[in-house]
């Protein structure tokens, strides 16, 4: 199994990635760990350089994992850097067919259904798939990427509203830091929410 992180820019540093890596390593030392990044410095795992063409910013680089040129094969498991591992999540990762994403069950307001806002009830903080089987996602994006970069705020919206099929993980796998502060789950997703501050506070006090 390949476990992949994507780090672009300086919003998150190598310490964020290494912490996530070490927290997963204690539960799965047999997987191959990779970080897809333009800055491999101080990273403890293998790195895959971010391609220079097409140049993409921020989370859009995640889509390249679905390119047929992405140099990995077999089962893939992706984690956003702003996720925290609380206990062993691996028993939940046993289906690598198709695309599996996080069910944002906390987004239950009808406001998320406004069609012209292109909002979604999933997020791609954690993804499973098998390399080579989801290339149509990248291919569709690449053919008209400038339009999609304007239309969607992120890859979650692109995946859902461009009609790609997906499954979701069991809801007990994920805790939303913002919406479910008291839930106990193997993975906490911060969804960019002050994760840097939270990380710094935690590392200083632990």
């Amino acid at each position, binding site marked *: 199994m390949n476990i992949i992180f994507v780090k672009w820019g300086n919003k998150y540093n190598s310490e964020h990635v290494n912490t996530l890596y070490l927290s997963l390593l204690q539960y799965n030392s047999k997987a191959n760990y990779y970080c897809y990044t333009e800055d491999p410095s101080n990273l403890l795992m293998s790195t895959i350089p971010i391609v*220079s*063409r*097409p*140049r*993409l*910013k*921020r989370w*859009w680089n995640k889509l390249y994992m679905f390119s047929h040129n992405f140099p990995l094969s077999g089962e893939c498991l992706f984690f956003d850097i702003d996720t925290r591992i609380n206990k062993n999540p691996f028993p939940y990762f046993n289906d690598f067919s198709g695309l599996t994403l996080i069910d944002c069950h906390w987004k239950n307001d009808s406001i998320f259904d406004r*069609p*012209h806002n*292109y909002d979604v009830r999933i997020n791609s903080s954690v993804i499973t798939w098998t390399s080579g089987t989801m290339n149509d996602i990248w291919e569709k994006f690449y*053919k*008209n*990427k*400038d*339009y999609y*970069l*304007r*239309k969607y705020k992120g890859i979650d919206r692109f995946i859902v509203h461009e009609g790609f099929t997906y499954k979701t993980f069991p809801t007990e796998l994920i805790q939303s830091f913002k919406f479910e502060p008291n839930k106990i789950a193997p993975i906490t997703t911060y969804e960019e929410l002050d994760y840097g501050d939270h990380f710094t506070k935690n590392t200083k006090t632990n």
Partner: protein
Amino acid sequence: MEIILQRILKQIEIIYDDSMYSQTNDLYRIKDLIHSVDYNQILSKRWLITELLNIFNPIKNKHNLGEIPKFIIGGGWYGLMAYLLREKFENSLIINVDMDPVCLDIGSKIYHDQDIGFEQNDVVDYGIDCDIFVSTSVEHFDKDDFKFLLKSKPKHTICALQSNDWEKIDSHINCHKTLDDFIYYLSLKEVLYKGEIKINNEYSRFSVIGW
């Protein structure tokens, strides 16, 4: 311009109707289409055309531009720049190139009587075998690809180009901090015009004309 805006309103109605009665549901096209003709788009493009007109006659003979100059517009979106060029260059061949297939579809309806050729392609692949190459969206092109495109141009081709320093937009992958940086990047043999305007106190738009 009024007739063009009326046609754009018609296209917006069609997009909305499609979202009601067909499988096509792309309401963002409405916003995109409106953005393509907003005040700043028209201002920026008219500015470049004004400067191009100022230098056009003096260089016409030197560059053997002939009676019917050929324009290629790279990343021309729905065709506003092509239309504004047509207003000033009545006897010319104008081709709008954009990789988005819907731009071709909508643009050729809005500007159907303006004698504008619409091509769905990446201008980097299409090439710029023309007298005047125009792109007001250099910030959207890959840095190396666009540089390669300029290197491959015929010697006589005049380039009228715009970029900006608005780095925070996801689709802006070829911004430049200053006008001089933009000029340095383009590496033209001779710069005939250079200028800069501030848009909404938010970012600077740079124009360079040269060859």
